């Protein structure tokens, strides 16, 4: 796991020991790095012998399928795949007869850890409902790594997931991308290379929560709230740019005071933080894409996007992903126009479609959500293959999270985050039989003794039971 960031951290150590050996630019980089990453990842992949799976159907997650394929996982990476791979001497060999290999599922919309099980009030850490703009809060500071939901999701083939704050606020706070390998701390799960995201919300929720608490009370006030915040962020950015400029020109001035809220918003305008926006209605998503242009930032994905099918062309044009359910609808007005073909219709328009869960139950079988959407699309006359549909579960969510260089597809050199399914994963009866994260087998359905158990479930009834 030699990454840019770990190299920077090493630079920090050597700089402090040998100050004279450090260039100015290294120092500047180091300082910036520390400011941007005060809670660094302590994730460590589990060591594993190489693994070779043979005679298996492979969906590469990019739209391609290999029948009777082989794949070699070595040193945490996908080393080779195709119709024939080399077999290292110490490799674990798995016969994949009748089974399927896919990239691990990536859920870009989860509240595991911030709304954990049991769902007691003292565990309710997902919505900072004290004001409509709380860009200063970070979901990672609420994540409880002992949420048993992580292990349940792992048994469903989820290898990475984004934990978001809730949708009560216009700006709900920073999100965090985790590897689904719970350990003692949140930092142990933190996806080392993942950029931060920010949760924003359209529509009913901010209205409902703040309508009688000083606003926003209407959708028009929601939009005024976003714009006002972006204006503040532009001003904050300028203050820092002016400071940097005066420093460079040798005119020493005091650095502006850091503002956690504006730092996050400025991070969006600077392209460092990805926007994940809870938004159901077509008209509202379109307004938000105009706000995006007004303030020159990029929305990574709309979440829920129940009406994305109505504006799939606009979503494609603006390069904004939609993270959707297969069939949730009707629980509130903005979800009333939900249809079963939303995901395939967005895909068919050339826009980026993602299957998300927003649910500790749904996250356990996202493959079935994709299967429903795929088959509904095919029945409606949309020509989509299963291999193409798997992009909704891995490549597209990875892109929306800024981690596609590392995971989300079966390509040589990528992290070995893969799932071996007991059967065609578009079947209700298929199960994630073996799940690999960075090449290590972290879940094996056939070996109950090896199943991970969260601290919460230790010493409780049915500890270690099939869940």
């Amino acid at each position, binding site marked *: 796991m030699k990454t840019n960031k770990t190299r920077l951290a090493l630079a920090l150590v050597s700089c402090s020991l040998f100050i004279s050996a450090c260039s100015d630019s290294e120092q500047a980089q180091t300082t910036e790095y520390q400011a941007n990453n005060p809670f660094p990842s302590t994730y460590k992949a589990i060591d594993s012998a190489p693994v070779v799976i043979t005679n298996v159907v492979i969906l590469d997650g990019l739209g391609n399928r290999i029948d009777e394929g082989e794949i070699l996982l070595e040193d945490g990476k996908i080393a080779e795949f195709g119709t024939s791979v080399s077999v290292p001497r110490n490799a674990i060999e798995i016969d994949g007869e009748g089974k399927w290999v896919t990239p691990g599922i990536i859920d870009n919309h989860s509240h595991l850890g911030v709304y954990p*099980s049991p769902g007691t009030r003292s565990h309710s850490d997902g919505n900072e409902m004290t004001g409509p703009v709380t860009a200063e809060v970070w979901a990672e500071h609420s994540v409880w790594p002992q949420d048993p939901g992580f292990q349940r999701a792992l048994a469903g083939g989820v290898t990475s997931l984004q934990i978001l704050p809730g949708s009560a606020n216009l700006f709900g706070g920073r999100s965090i991308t985790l590897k689904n390998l719970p350990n003692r701390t949140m930092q142990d799960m933190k996806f080392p290379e993942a950029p931060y995201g920010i949760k924003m919300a359209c529509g009913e929720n901010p209205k409902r929560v703040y309508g009688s608490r000083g606003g926003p009370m209407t959708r028009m006030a929601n939009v005024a709230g976003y714009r006002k915040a972006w204006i503040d962020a532009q001003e904050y950015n300028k203050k820092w740019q002016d400071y940097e400029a005066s420093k460079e020109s040798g005119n020493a001035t005091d650095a502006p005071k850091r503002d956690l809220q504006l730092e996050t918003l400025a991070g969006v305008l600077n392209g460092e933080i990805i926007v994940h926006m809870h938004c159901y209605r077509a008209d509202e998503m379109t307004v938000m894409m105009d706000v995006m242009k007004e303030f020159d930032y990029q929305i990574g994905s709309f979440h829920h996007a129940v009406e994305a099918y109505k504006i799939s062309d606009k979503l494609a044009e603006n390069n904004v992903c939609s993270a959707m359910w297969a069939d949730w609808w009707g629980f509130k007005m903005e979800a009333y126009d*939900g249809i079963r073909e939303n995901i395939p219709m967005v895909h068919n328009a050339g826009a980026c479609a993602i299957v998300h869960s927003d649910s500790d139950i749904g996250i356990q079988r996202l493959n079935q959500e994709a299967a429903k959407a795929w088959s509904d699309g095919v029945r409606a006359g949309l020509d989509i293959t299963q291999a193409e549909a798997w992009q909704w579960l891995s490549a597209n969510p990875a892109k929306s999270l800024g981690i596609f260089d590392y995971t989300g597809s079966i390509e040589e050199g990528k992290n070995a985050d893969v799932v071996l399914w007991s059967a065609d994963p578009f079947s*209700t009866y298929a199960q994630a039989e073996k799940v690999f994260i960075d090449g290590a087998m972290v879940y094996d359905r056939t070996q109950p003794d090896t199943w991970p158990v969260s601290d919460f479930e230790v010493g409780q009834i049915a500890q270690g039971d099939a869940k």
Partner: protein
Amino acid sequence: MRNLQITSFKHKLKLLALTSVMAVMSATSTAQEKLAITGAQIHTMGPKGIIVEGTLLIEDGKIKDVLSNNTVPAGFTKVDASGKVITPGFMGALTSLGLVEVGLSAGVNDSRVDAHPVSSVGAAYDSQFAFNADSTLLDVTRIEGFTSAATGLRTSQLFDGQGAIISLGDELESVTHPQAFVHVDVGNGGADNNGESRAALWVALNQSLEEALFALSYDLSPSEGWEGMISRADAKALIPVVQGDTPLLVTAHRANDILQVLALKKRFANLDVVLVHASDGWRVASQIAEADVPVILNPEFNLPGEFDRLGATLENAGRLHEAGVMIAIGVDTHNVRLAAQHAGNAVANGLPHDAAIASLTINPAKIFGVDDNIGSLESGKQADFVIFSGDPLEVTQAAEQVYVSGKAVSMESRQTKLRDRYLKYTGEKPVGYIK
């Protein structure tokens, strides 16, 4: 005396319901053909079991016969269903269909009842009066293979009112069995609403049922004094419960709560008890089976969402069935249509396939006492059935044609119409003009 009056009142209601159903059927059956649906695999859920390739004969809105071959008798119109799968219409086991359109912040939601002076413990509220046959949820649910449902209420009191059985045919008069069940929650949710402790909830439940027994021989008219904890209207709703004429649905999760429910059944010998959820039910499955208590559940609930369901597992449905407990699957409203997927996941975790189909059809019909007419494909029963493209529990398969009382219903819903409108949209003219 009191009892007789109530019985005759209920009898009248049932007659009323029956008359309206018969009126509907005679109206449709005159235009109806005699149908022979051939070539499909037929899950009869009756004594004939699974017929690998057979023929379903429909006449006058009823099932005339199920044949183990592809014979088309004279006078019957052949409907070729070769390679398809036929099951009885699915029954939503516990829903609020027809009582709610949009759940949150969207005006009146008849499925949720605020405390009202007519009822002190919530038993009296009656869903039959709130049913709306124009709800778009009915079409959305029907086109996925559901032809009937139990529909009920939520309250913040002890009982969740009286539920009804509805037909999902496209007729206005769809409440086939009013006052079909009473529901109570004795889990954490129920305790929250009742003194915030089971120690209060259970005393209130016992007291309510004892008062209902007492009311059996009491004049509840306004001229007489009634000092009971339950209101007069509650007493009227609970009398058929303590007599065993109306099932009492009891939501419970943890093993001790379930044992309390079984003990309740012993205290009130006539109670027809049905457990709902029973998340930890697998731990006391043999006792549940011995007490002959069925369970309605969503088998996908496998998280310790509260401290009263720490044993929740995907294998609950399979383990209960294995122990001899009758189970029904289908708890939801807007998406009760996903019950077939839920049942499929129960199969993936140990429930036999045939038992999963039963959990969607004949079992809920038995639980609500309507299996004399629906729930299986047997001669003389109402012809509610579905032609599926394949295994109905597979998420990639779909209902291709749904029949209610022998009539092929429209396979469109507001959702399919929205879909078709936007599949046709080209930008040439505003979307409002696309038909």
